[in-house]
């Protein structure tokens, strides 16, 4: 008895010395590499903190391969469904893993994937250890973060007292996380965007607040969320909120790994639900009922009907403030999932009611957009891992719409070669406010396309992937006054001769039809050609210093644009201090030939920026660890443009040719 207490005490000491390891991996090269490989091209500034957060949790508390459920493995969102299935089959056939390195023996898990996976998994001791872990802890674990950002130049909007920004230029973010035990956790996020005010005649100090309370594994209830949450089912055709990724040379992005109900803790102001939801498990069924009641920002027409919904979350100018939370959305429904041996079937159904009518307008391209005040959506999805393949798909229909479908297959034809095929057909009249489909266009609506890609890994040093996508838009689009079509071809080559050097080359050519620009009475639809060539070189200069170079060339029709940058990062293992710098030079003639690149930033603030115009960029990030519980980050950035007297347009315009920004972030965990 005494012996047990001594062992327990020793374990507690050991545990408490490792419990605050959240802070260790921030400018984490492995996690950064994963985020960057997503290759997302988007104009919207998105918050990847949730994705980063999830990976960091597993970095400090690795997932036990032997006892992890499919849903837990899905949280390692860079794993393909085929790989998750292979891991579980391996355990079923060969017994539990004795060592994480055994992953190399799992089919469909190539060396690169194993290397990516190793930091987040372990072959740990059985579950009782984890129970001990939390029971003996001081009541709960708190994680508190505050961030301050500011643009050093003054934007035009601040000088305009009538229709400009009503607030101050500071950007403030507060994040709080609480973990009580393995069952209960909660979060609170507050944000004041630049231009918004802190003090106003309204409830709450901050313009945006989000929070949740999350109960896990409570008898029949697998999850209960009160507050803000995301729902992801099937292939994203019927219901999918939160971040999702489209086309890239990563074959993994073809099949979505839906996690179902997920508590929300990001700063993206549009992509979530607010209310109550839960997931119940009964025999082979998983049932997720949900209810949400939210206020959205909508632009209204003269007679109070909705013309569009804004998800930027910016409430700075009087116009933006008048649109703030002026549309009420009530949504409720349920998703039922049934698992047989390997086949999983799901039905998702929900009803959405708005407080105002939608009236998209009378333009020809708007003809099939959502009209009215309510929407009923229903969808059927399936996933079937079958031998060396993974077959998946979803069918969806809104009331009055035609049937939309997405179906695909990912097959591992040999240990070295994988093939992915996907066919999508989404009619122009398909309406959904929360969907995220693998498609050429951003919403996937009004699109038919066929994607085929192969990935070849002849050995651990080389990886080669090719894909083609053929698509057509049966109806008009914004900026395209006729049904149109296009196709895309992309090649990517990875060469990793050693742990310290990696070379990546990519080439992509895309043909799309767009309206001819020019002063014509009748604008024809012409084919435009868009090419992109990118070369990445990453290498370790010393054990602690890593460098990364990128050279990117974009050719849009006859326009040429290029971007070159040099990154250097300093990540010593035992030091209190780490940091990175970037120096970039770019020449981009217009918006059409813009180039996107991942930006290293303070923790949770990483983003993807679209470079435009001609100039240079310099930024430096630094992190100082006072104690294991207290960390400080600093970010300073300056962009200097050539041949410009002002930068930007509208309310965000700055005078002069320089744009500089500073960020300060403090994190305290206890």
């Amino acid at each position, binding site marked *: 008895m005494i012996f047990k207490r001594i062992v327990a005490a020793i374990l507690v000491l050991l545990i408490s010395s490792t419990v605050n390891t959240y802070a260790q991996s921030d400018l984490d090269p492995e996690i950064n590499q994963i985020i960057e490989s997503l290759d997302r091209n988007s104009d919207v500034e998105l918050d990847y903190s949730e994705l980063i957060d999830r990976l960091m949790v597993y970095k400090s508390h690795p997932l036990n391969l032997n006892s992890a459920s499919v849903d837990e493995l899905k949280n390692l969102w860079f794993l393909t469904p085929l790989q998750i299935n292979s891991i579980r089959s391996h355990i079923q056939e060969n017994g539990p893993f004795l060592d994480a390195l055994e992953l190399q023996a799992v089919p469909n898990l190539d060396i690169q994937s194993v290397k990516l996976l190793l930091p987040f998994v372990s072959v740990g001791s059985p579950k009782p250890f984890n129970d001990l872990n939390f029971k003996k802890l001081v009541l709960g674990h708190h994680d508190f973060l505050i961030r301050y950002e500011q643009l050093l130049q003054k934007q035009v909007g601040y000088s305009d007292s009538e229709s400009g920004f009503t607030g101050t230029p500071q950007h403030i973010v507060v994040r709080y996380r609480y973990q009580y035990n393995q069952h209960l956790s909660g979060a609170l996020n507050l944000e004041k965007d630049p231009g918004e005010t802190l003090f106003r005649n309204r409830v709450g100090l901050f313009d945006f607040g989000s929070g949740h309370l999350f109960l896990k594994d409570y008898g029949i209830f697998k999850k209960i969320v009160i507050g803000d949450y995301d729902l992801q089912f099937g292939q994203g055709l019927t219901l999918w909120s939160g971040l999702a990724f489209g086309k890239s040379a990563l074959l993994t992005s073809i099949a979505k790994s839906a996690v179902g109900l997920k508590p929300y803790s990001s700063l993206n102001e549009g992509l979530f639900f607010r209310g109550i939801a839960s997931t119940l498990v009964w025999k082979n069924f998983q049932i997720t009922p949900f209810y949400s009641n939210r206020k959205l920002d909508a632009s209204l027409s003269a007679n109070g009907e909705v013309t569009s919904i804004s998800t930027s979350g910016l409430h700075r100018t009087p116009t933006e403030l008048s649109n703030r939370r002026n549309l009420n959305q009530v949504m409720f429904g349920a998703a039922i999932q049934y698992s047989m041996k390997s086949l999983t079937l799901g039905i998702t159904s929900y009803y959405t009611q708005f407080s105002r009518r939608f009236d998209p307008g009378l333009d020809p391209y708007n003809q099939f957009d959502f009209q009215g005040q309510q929407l009923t959506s229903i969808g059927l999805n399936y996933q079937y891992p079958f031998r060396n393949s993974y077959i998946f798909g979803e069918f969806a229909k809104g009331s009055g719409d035609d049937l939309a479908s997405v179906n695909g297959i990912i097959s591992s*034809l*040999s*240990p*070295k*070669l994988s*093939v992915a095929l996907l066919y999508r057909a989404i009619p122009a009249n398909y309406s959904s406010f929360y969907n995220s489909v693998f498609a050429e266009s951003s919403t996937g609506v009004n699109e038919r396309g*066929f994607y*085929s890609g*192969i990935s*070849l890994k*002849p050995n651990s040093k080389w990886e080669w992937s*090719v894909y*083609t996508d*053929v698509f*057509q838009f049966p109806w008009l689009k914004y900026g395209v006054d006729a049904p149109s*079509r296009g*196709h895309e*071809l992309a090649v990517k080559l990875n060469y990793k001769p050693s742990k310290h050097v990696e070379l990546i080359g990519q080439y992509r050519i895309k*043909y799309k039809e767009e309206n001819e620009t020019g002063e014509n009475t009748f604008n024809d639809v012409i084919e435009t050609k868009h090419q992109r060539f990118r070369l990445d070189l990453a290498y370790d200069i010393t054990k602690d210093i890593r460098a990364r170079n990128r050279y990117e060339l974009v050719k849009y029709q006859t326009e040429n644009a290029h971007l070159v940058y040099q990154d250097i990062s300093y990540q010593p293992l035992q030091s209190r201090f780490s940091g990175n710098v970037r120096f970039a030079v770019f020449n981009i003639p217009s918006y059409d030939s813009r180039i996107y690149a991942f930006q290293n930033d303070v923790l949770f603030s990483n983003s993807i920026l679209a470079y435009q115009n001609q100039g240079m960029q310099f930024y430096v990030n630094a992190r100082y660890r006072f104690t294991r519980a207290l960390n400080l980050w600093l970010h300073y950035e300056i962009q200097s443009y050539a041949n410009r007297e002002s930068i930007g347009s509208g309310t965000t315009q700055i005078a002069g040719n320089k744009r500089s920004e500073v960020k300060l972030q403090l994190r305290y965990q206890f």
Partner: protein
Amino acid sequence: MRLILLLVVLFSYQANSQTAQGARSLGLANSTVAAQGIWSLNDNQAGLANIKRISLALDYQKFLIGQPVAMNGMLLAIPYKNQVFGLTFSTYGFEVYRSQKMGLAYARNFGAKLFTALTFYYHSLAISQYGNSGTYSVDAGFQYQLNPTVRIASHIGNLSNSTFQKDNLFANLPLKIQFGALYQTSELVSLSMMLEETLAKNAQLNLGLEYHIAPILALRGGVSSSPFRQYAGFGLAKADFKLDLALASQQVLGYTSQISLAYDF
């Protein structure tokens, strides 16, 4: 409308290079410059050099379903020690445009590592109201087995840059240079690629993938860069017979289908 487009395509300055390469080749986006077998007779003839048995093959291709344009081909290969002789006859076209091709190929293998071939063709072309004409052309090619899984190849079609020229009829036969490789990634899967440069046209990159899902069934898919087309096909092999089917699609013009049958004696 499509017919007019078709005729425009056919009457253009360059006569068509439609060759009876077999539905296996079409299923692989015609990237088969490094492939071997009876179908190499109209492709890279060096691929004949590894044939061990007398083979006979028939080919039928229907262009742009709904149009009358079609191609028929017959191929015969006779091996003798390290050499293989090939004989082929094919016709292409429709009522107003007919071309015929006869070929004699001589292929030789050196130690099962290096394969070479030289081929003579006689072409004839008849376009209604323009008359008819005939000409000879020469093809040359080689293949080299780099290692057990990779084979590289090169082929020149119409080395002599022959043309049709008689009275009102003038057309070029395309001069093509092709480089390619075949990579056997595993026992069941092979990847073939080819870079083709035709005089006075864009260079084209073709990629094909073949997967033996079962001993009797092979699945194929491919893509070509310019013109951008996608290909799919399958093949059945039973006893000494091989049956192949393939479909090629072009976004605007539609589908082309092909069926071929081969028999080894």
